[in-house]
């Protein structure tokens, strides 16, 4: 993939220039006639943007708006129910014990923009999250938290889910995991995403492992 296109697409997203971003993707989609442009352009750009936030070069607001733009564009090219989206293990995302939606919204947007189909369980308590996950037979569960107490509550969720469905994989994220980089292991998760870059990579790695 021409690195110039990646640069242009990244610049369009960071400038929140939806029209320019759409123009770049439409041109790529027309040329390729496949979904390869998502892997070649959208995923690397979202990963780069996530890394820039981790390094303190761009703010969270730009990641959120970039993710939103990408999600809308990809939705227009790749409807939610398209076979390309649902031909991988069942994935869901939830917030535990909290109504602060930003982290989940960002991760949800970038994953959808990278072609992943995922269920959004919204805000759940531990019981609700376990019940919903098992009922929907989810294979990969992403949990976002804001508070340290909520992060510790994940321990119970992991234990109950693994007992009922040993093959399930859990990815955790949110502020407590950024400030304590060992905490994800303590709560028994399989992976963490300190930023969107890591969340995308961890999710796709698990998709490949479970497919």
């Amino acid at each position, binding site marked *: 993939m021409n690195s110039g296109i990646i640069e242009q697409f990244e610049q369009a997203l960071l400038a929140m220039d939806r029209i320019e971003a759409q123009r770049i993707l439409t041109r790529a989609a027309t040329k390729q006639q496949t979904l390869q442009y998502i892997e070649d352009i959208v995923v690397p750009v979202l990963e780069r943007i996530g890394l820039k936030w981790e390094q303190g070069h761009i*703010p969270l607001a730009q990641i959120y708006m970039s993710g939103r733009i990408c999600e809308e564009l990809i939705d227009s090219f790749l409807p939610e129910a398209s076979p390309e989206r649902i031909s991988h293990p069942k994935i869901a995302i939830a917030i535990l014990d909290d*109504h602060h939606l*930003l982290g989940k919204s960002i991760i949800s947007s970038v994953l959808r923009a990278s072609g992943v189909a995922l269920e959004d369980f919204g805000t759940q308590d531990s019981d609700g999250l376990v019940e919903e996950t098992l009922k929907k037979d989810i294979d990969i569960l992403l949990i976002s938290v804001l508070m340290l107490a909520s992060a510790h509550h994940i321990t119970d969720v992991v234990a109950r889910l693994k007992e009922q469905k040993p093959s399930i994989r859990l990815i955790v994220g949110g502020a407590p995991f950024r*400030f304590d980089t060992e905490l994800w292991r303590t709560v028994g998760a399989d992976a963490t995403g300190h930023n969107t870059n890591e969340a995308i990579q961890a999710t796709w790695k698990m998709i490949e492992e479970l497919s």
Partner: protein
Amino acid sequence: MSTPAMTSLERVLTTLGHQEPDRVPLFLLLTMHGAKELGMSIRDYFSRADHVAEGQLRLREKYQHDCYYSFFYAPLEVEAWGGDVLYVEDGPPNSGQPFIQHPSQIEKLTVPDMDTPCLQKVLDATATIKKEMPSEAPIIGVVMSPFSLPVMQLGFPAYLDLIYQQPDLFSKLMEINQDFCVAWANAQLDAGATAICYFDPVSSPTIIDRALYQRTGQPVARETLARINGPTATHLASGRSLPIVDDVAATGSAVISATALESLADMKTASRNKLTVLGNLNGIEMARWSPEEARAKVTAAIAAAAPGGGFILSDNHGEIPWQVSDEILMTISETVRESGTYPLLP
């Protein structure tokens, strides 16, 4: 020659003047730990002003730190606007569903009265602490900045959409929130608070870029702080602050928080003689520190930022998690007394 011991208030005022006091001031920004001291649930603890006043008095007696913290919990302000507060057994009360479900509701918002019960509890707790300990240590009151409160009023995604896409409604919300913030800060000062901690995490470069801050959060802070009748400290609640040190200094704030994600030494250099640095112990990691780790972290922070004054040791978030043990808090306090006495040892 050793410096005569100062009161906590003298110690803090000296460091705010960018001079070295007798030792490094320590702010243990403890909220929920008062419930542990009183042997009650977090919910019961925050249900009454006298609980919180007693908790703060006991905590300072126990840890010998340098402030009282009359802050209850973050969503208290949205509770005053009619929002929900959710309690858990092992963490701070959290805000429920945003009470503004559609931006058009902003047009109809009115500023809550200061005698709203949840606000009055804080004012009563502040007055009680002030009555018990009139001038020995500063009482730190807290307000959410008008610019950051909307995260709980609307929810974060909707608020970002408002900032970027609906400038008129954003301005209207800032106007209402500023009136509330000023009234709430001044009510706490009238009740006995010595200074106001202005929590403004959305202004952090972690959340928005500096240029946007200069167009939004900074002018809001400058206008708001000018109307508050006492000294103010800007806290970005674990958010990065290094790129906006000069901008925060221009708002009239006396203090800036430092996150554990940035170099404390760099923060001190950037802030020298402009702002006192508050921070930057990692409160999340603190929950699993050993006493040895706690001693090492405190010693390192003092070495990085204490020379010359202009530094208050604290956690980096403005609220120490419930999970942090008494042993670690005591170790932090003891280490400050051992290693934080001026003149500092090389």
